[in-house]
């Protein structure tokens, strides 16, 4: 039984997800939120989901930054798996998604059975982050400052916040802030250019 919460600002998509998830044996839809601060945290505390399907493009902020905060504020073993659900699951998304601690990135264009498969894989502990080519990683890293690049390298290699802080002689809270800032920088624009 996998208990799933959905964070997405589109009511139609939330309703669709609720219907298909409830109809799928082994999956339970436990709650939904449009992604605003007021409803996200109560939802997560109340329902304690196993997995969150999290929209990448939230109107009030960035899905990955929210992912990062969820992972930090609900530490293991309580931390839910986070599957980033994006209308544009481009290779560029892999790097920031990994940095935000997401467990997977899936495209909104997937058919229901493919989505269920992704949900089950992630719940089992696999990571569905894709494997961006060196070119993509390089061009993404070029958008960052040198200091940030070092931090990203450490964090992607599996260092915790405390370890990274020690290596770079920073405060752990600084590492968190820096990560959120880097996620903001790497935030790829919705192709419409409106953010």
């Amino acid at each position: 039984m996998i208990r799933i919460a959905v964070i997405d600002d589109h009511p139609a998509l939330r309703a669709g997800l609720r219907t298909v998830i409830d109809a799928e044996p082994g999956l339970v839809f436990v709650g939904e939120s449009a992604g605003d601060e007021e409803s996200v945290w109560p939802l997560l505390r109340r329902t304690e989901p196993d997995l969150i399907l999290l929209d990448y493009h939230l109107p009030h902020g960035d899905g990955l930054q929210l992912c990062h905060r969820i992972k930090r504020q609900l530490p293991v073993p309580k931390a839910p798996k986070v599957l980033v659900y994006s209308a544009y699951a481009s290779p560029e998304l892999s790097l920031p998604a990994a940095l935000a601690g997401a467990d997977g990135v899936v495209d909104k264009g997937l058919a229901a059975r493919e989505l269920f498969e992704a949900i089950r894989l992630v719940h089992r502990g696999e990571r569905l982050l894709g494997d961006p080519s060196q070119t993509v990683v390089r061009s993404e890293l070029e958008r960052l400052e040198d200091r940030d690049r070092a931090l990203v390298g450490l964090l992607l290699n599996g260092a915790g916040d405390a370890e990274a802080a020690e290596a770079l002689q920073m405060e752990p809270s600084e590492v968190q802030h820096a990560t959120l800032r880097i996620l903001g920088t790497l935030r790829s624009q919705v192709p419409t250019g409106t953010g």
Partner: protein
Amino acid sequence: MPHTRWETRRRLIEGDATPWLALLVAARVMATGVAIGLILLEPIDSALLVLTAYGAISAIVIATMPRVRASPLAWVLDTAFALACVLASGDWRSPFYVLWLTTLALPAVMLPLRQAVWLAIAAPVLYLSLGLFGGPAPGALRPITSETLVIHLLLPAVLVAGLAYATYALQRVQEERMRRERLAIEAERRRIAWELHDSAKQRLHAAHLLVSSLHGRVGPELVAAVERASVELESAAADMDTSLAELRSPLEGRPLHAALEARARELVTDGGPTITVRGEAPTLPPLVAAHAYRIVSEALTNALRHAEATAIEVTLERTPSGLRIGVADNGRGLPETHRPHATGILAMQSRAESIGARLVVASRDGQPGTRVLVDLPAGAPRPQGATA
């Protein structure tokens, strides 16, 4: 960039030149008429009459031949001729003075502002020297009153500077208007794109999820319908992506092969197959080009996903019947048994049908790999459902 400014200016003049030209020609004809009238009052000189006919002839040439109108050589000849008339009349207070003034109008409006200012300075100086060394008394000016001299020297300067500035101002206004229009169009495009993305596309995703969740849960008589509906919804979402991409950086304006080259660059990965695009596409109706682009993108994605190829080649070649686009890889070819969920191929097929194209997906004869061929008929019909 003086060159572009020059071009804008020229286009501005050529663009809606009718009233302006009519005015110029009228002034010229009038000046010639005045000159003829004044000459007739004096003893008739046949050479002068021939020279006078120049005014009328040149007016016709200017009005009918835009190329002559825009040529600096023609301006120089024109002005030199009018000055020759003044010189031949033997007096700088000549009736040909007005004809000469009209010869300054073309360069004044067509030259870039800076050069026109130089012309405004040079014209009175030129006329002053003509008055000094021409007639009536070479070596001395002999104005009737000082006003005559001042008017004769100020008028060309005022005329050239005034015309040049008016043209410059008009040009700025026009540029500003074009810039505003462009910005407004861009803002509108962004708004439409945002609405498509924010609302319609999300609903499509929801519908696709719902329909695709029926897979395996309906009786055999409905399997095909569910499968087809799922494909259509998926294609609609992809169509919307194409439209969004077009709204963002329109394929329209960028030829198909350029768009495909860009797509190929996006898809190439380290250690993945190489993708080359050869050939060029003619200008296609935007929707046809968009569908063709989408079909080739899908073929590339399929080849990358399933073919285990090391090289993929996209070719565009014109055929007697239209345009043939090929996507060939050197991978393992099509599987022996038909894959029931080859939705990619179904989607490509449905797209091809909607633009009247023929799609063939087959293993390559005699060599490893798969080949996708799209034959776009020349003058491809408008896609079904397109009203515009």
